[in-house]
């Protein structure tokens, strides 16, 4: 039964958006453009250099595509956590607490924006282009890796979103802080991590497990050595990292909601 509820809630949300057709179409176009602009940045960069951190243009495009798909999927479900401060201020969060469902899934399905699909489609196109140009030695395992990577990445991004947005229960206007990690890690993961300076790399790659979204799986797929010296199996560890991140996020959310019900600010 419970599995029926959430698809229905998502369906309801989509119907709501269709009731504002003009703005829906405009949003969709905006999203596709936004995705292209990031692409243009990479292409311009490679107009001046032939390699970035030892990676060719098409290899970087692959990372960019993995990160783009993962971020797109995460944004589709976790993006509405950006509304959390509003929910808390207006008391909508109390309405969620009055229902016999968990608060996090309710928020996740509360504002699924179909226009964000534009991003995902754009990134998939780039992935197809990149995969046909980088010369992967395909094995069944690598095919599986290609499919699982964006999904695991989406879970990792989603977890980052949940953890950082939980801060809003303490600081209602904590959104800027959260955005630095969510949108920031999208940009971070689109490039090889070895191009960043060591402190940023450590924080964004391992504490926030951004390097597992695109960088390490891409290495495994390309059959390349990690310039930073981590063993090859790390490239296959993303699903595990995703599961761990999801567990941490679930814990953080519960802790935050308990705090909210304890203070009711």
């Amino acid at each position: 039964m419970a599995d029926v509820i959430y698809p229905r809630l998502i369906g309801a949300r989509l119907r709501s958006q269709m009731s504002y057709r003009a703005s829906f179409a405009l949003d969709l176009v905006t999203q596709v453009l936004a995705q292209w602009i990031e692409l243009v940045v990479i292409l311009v960069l490679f107009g001046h250099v032939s390699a970035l951190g030892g990676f060719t243009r098409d290899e970087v495009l692959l990372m960019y595509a993995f990160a783009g798909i993962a971020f797109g999927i995460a944004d589709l479900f976790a993006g509405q956590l950006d509304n959390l401060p509003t929910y808390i201020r207006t008391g909508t969060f109390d309405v969620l607490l009055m229902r016999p469902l968990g608060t996090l899934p309710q928020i996740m399905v509360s504002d699924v924006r179909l226009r964000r699909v534009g991003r995902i489609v754009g990134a998939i196109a780039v992935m197809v282009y990149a995969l046909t140009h980088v010369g992967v030695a395909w094995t069944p395992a690598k095919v599986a890796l290609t499919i699982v990577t964006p999904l695991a990445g989406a879970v990792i991004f989603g977890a980052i979103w949940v953890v950082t947005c939980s801060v809003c229960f303490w600081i209602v206007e904590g959104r800027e802080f959260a955005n630095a990690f969510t949108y920031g890690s999208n940009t971070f993961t689109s490039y090889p991590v070895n191009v960043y300076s060591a402190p940023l790399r450590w924080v964004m790659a391992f504490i926030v497990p951004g390097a597992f979204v695109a960088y390490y799986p891409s290495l495994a797929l390309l059959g390349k050595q990690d310039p930073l010296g981590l063993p090859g199996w790390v490239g296959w560890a993303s699903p595990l990292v995703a599961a761990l991140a999801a567990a941490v996020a679930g814990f953080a959310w519960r802790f935050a909601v308990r705090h909210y019900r304890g203070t009711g600010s």
Partner: protein
Amino acid sequence: MIEVRELRREFKVATSKGLRRNYKTVTAVDGVTFDVAAGEAVGYVGPNGAGKSTTIKMLTGILVPTSGHITVGGVDPSKQRRDLAKRIGVVFGQRSQLWWDLPLQDSFDLLKSIYRVSAEDYRKRLEECVELLGLREFLSTPVRQLSLGQRMRGEITAALLHAPELLVLDEPTIGLDLESKERLREFLADINTRRGTTLLLTTHDLDDIERLCPRLMVIDHGRVLADGPLEELRAEVTPDRELVIDLREPGPAPDVPGVTAVRSEANGLRHHLTFRRAETTAAQLITQVVRQVEVHDLAVVEPEIDDVIRKLYQRQLDQDVRR
């Protein structure tokens, strides 16, 4: 249905002084104890900031008490929030649980899934509400286009689809016009008596209480000042009643034993006679009055419920001063 013992709730409030931030503890609910039996209808009143909403949030499991003990329908709200949610309905006058951009009907359909109501129960309950609250003409209108009165009727229907044992209403009639208010009251009284749904409502509109709630609880500064039938509170706090007489010809007020004060209006055409309900009855008084003067019309006026509550506050203040 509801059991509350020594309920306390404190909040930390930030008070900024220059750059330093200090925290001050404010007690919103301060040792509240009461019981509500199944099928009762209880009015919970008090001025803004008295602790009404905080109590309601604790009863519905949104807030966790600082100390004290609550059971609602045999369940601890703070620990079994989701179990409780299936058994109670909550209506907040100031916030909506409907889907803003969707037709009203769609919100009901979604709630049916959320609360896992069977198709048959759903159809029966919805049909009943649609009939009694007159929702039919705007079932397919998006919620954002509904008038406040229409939306409120939708909210109450939404809270009743899972047939809750307890319906909690926070300011259900706020901002409604007289006709909508009356319609809501009639409906709520009906589900209380016919279906046996327990009602707990906070309100600023004392007509709500007069029409709906045989029992009144008055709260201020987080403490219950009075709890009992409206009639009893009225008799206890305001022992005076008033007999208003309109004379045929202007003249002096009749001199009747038992009257404690007289106020005259309209050049002696109308007189307000105050008397103590414990000492004399309206009937005795009227018999005496008509013997002395020729009466055109008369009415017995009960003290306004506002007066009752004002006097309760006053009494509490006096007690505090004496302490």
